[in-house]
């Protein structure tokens, strides 16, 4: 069990950046996520794919970070996509209605 959050950023190709999250997103770790995620959204034309496969816990503080990242993509003409969300975490996006405005790809499991 990991109470902390690891954020790994890797370039997939010239226009796509992969962000792999491992651990828990709460009020303690959300600032770290925001710090790492927001600068990536500033580059025009970039697609940011966030892999939440290894996220074991998330609450509204995580939703808040993704909302601010989404706003930044709108302002900077970049794109945000969330991938491999566990059912429990996907449910939070559904309850809050955020699944209708944030691109979520939950069909791809695993990946490379």
């Amino acid at each position, binding site marked *: 069990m990991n109470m902390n959050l690891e954020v790994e950023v890797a370039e997939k190709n010239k226009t796509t950046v992969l962000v792999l999250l491992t651990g*828990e997103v*709460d*009020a303690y770790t959300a600032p770290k996520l925001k710090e790492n995620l927001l600068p990536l959204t500033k580059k025009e034309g970039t697609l940011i794919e966030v892999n939440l496969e290894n996220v074991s*816990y998330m*609450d509204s503080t995580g939703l808040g970070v993704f909302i601010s990242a*989404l*706003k930044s993509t709108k302002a900077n003409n970049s794109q945000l996509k969330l991938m491999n969300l566990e059912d429990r975490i996907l449910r939070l996006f559904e309850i809050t209605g955020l699944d*209708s*405005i944030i691109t979520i790809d939950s069909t791809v499991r695993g990946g490379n």
Partner: protein
Amino acid sequence: MKHFDFIELKVPAKAEYIGVVRLSVSGIANRMGFTYEDIEDLKVAISEAMTNAVTHAYDEREDGEVTVGFGVYKNRLEVMVADRGESFDLTKVKADIGPYRQTESVEELREGGFGLFLIDALMDKVEINNDYGVIVLMTKFLHKNEVGFDDDQISTTQ
């Protein structure tokens, strides 16, 4: 005669202790026999209340504390989260909570406004008292011996 067990935790009003309280609720709910789904709901709801309490208490003074009380009953878990920070405007808080609606633009989205909404959605009963600081009391019922929705008569010894 004692009808329930009571557990109290007092933690510094710092974000790093939210995960510790989350572990505690997970352990208590597990021992009580809550399902995996219910335990996950409890973890999110209690963390949301803790996040609010930590924020309020910290605004007030740096060395603030948050008190968490767990009432363990046969058929339910009651969790109380109390800060001693400044009171907030409850009417305003209630007006601000709710899911995202299609009519709102992305720019208008509240980055921090989903906490109380999630607590309300994930718990069976939520009460907020702000006479002195802010106290959130949340209840989740155990559905161990659940019967069909058609049966409105259940004999219990309550």
